[in-house]
């Protein structure tokens, strides 16, 4: 039986994409959530400054901490992306290796 490398590669790629899919959805949801949280924080700080409940100094401190929160959200996004890539690549390799192993068994 001939070994169809193109088909094996195609199957491995499909396996990789399927494994990375949940991460793609989580990344999209997280970006939306982070964007909304950032907008809410900025609105609350701006309203506090406008009503005199927050001074300029306190407001500047809160804006700095808002940047820090954004940094943490970006770090969480980075984990989602890395984990998705890891899942995708490992599924790709597992599929490829499975097919190669079967081919080797037949050849031997």
């Amino acid at each position, binding site marked *: 039986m001939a070994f169809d490398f193109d088909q094996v590669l195609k199957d491995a790629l499909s396996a990789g994409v399927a494994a990375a899919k949940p991460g793609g959805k989580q990344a999209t949801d997280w970006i939306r959530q982070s964007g909304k949280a950032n907008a809410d924080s900025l609105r609350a700080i701006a309203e506090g400054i406008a009503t005199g409940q927050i001074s300029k100094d306190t407001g500047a401190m809160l804006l700095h901490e808002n940047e820090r929160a954004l940094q943490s959200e970006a770090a969480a996004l980075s984990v989602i992306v890395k*984990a998705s890539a890891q899942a995708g690549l490992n599924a790709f390799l597992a599929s490829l290796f499975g097919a190669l192993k079967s081919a080797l068994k037949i050849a031997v």
Partner: protein
Amino acid sequence: MDRSRSMFVMSKRAPYSSTWAARLCLAVALLGAGCVSVSSYDKDSVDRTTEISKSVLSFYQDVLATPPDERKAAVNGSLGKRQGDIESEIRLHLLREQARPMNDESVQIATNLLASWQTFSKIHGEGDATALTDATLTSERGLMERQLGSAFKAEEAKKIATGAAK
């Protein structure tokens, strides 16, 4: 054709079977090593973050429940001690995160969490007249929730790497 030229042609056109063997070896080597880019999911990390969240949210609830003109005294008294306890909890969490391999992002989040908490604690004691108003405190609480939410998200995302997340 001289001898050196004939060897060059040989090396350029390797037999089909040896090309396959090389591909197979590469695949085996790659699979043997696996691909690992993030630390594995750790329930203890989620539990620690949950405990810190409880302490932080309960702190803000109690300060906000205190009449505005009594907040400064409360923060300099019993609530001040709780601020210190929360800082210790976050420091311990940071140390535990630092001990895990391939965990740069969670370490970054824990570092940011600690830095924000230290800034807020300092402002509560030394800030101006608006440091303990409802608007400032609710903004701070919102920012802390975002830091804690990032810590939870980063940990849950590690499940994706093993295919446990759907």
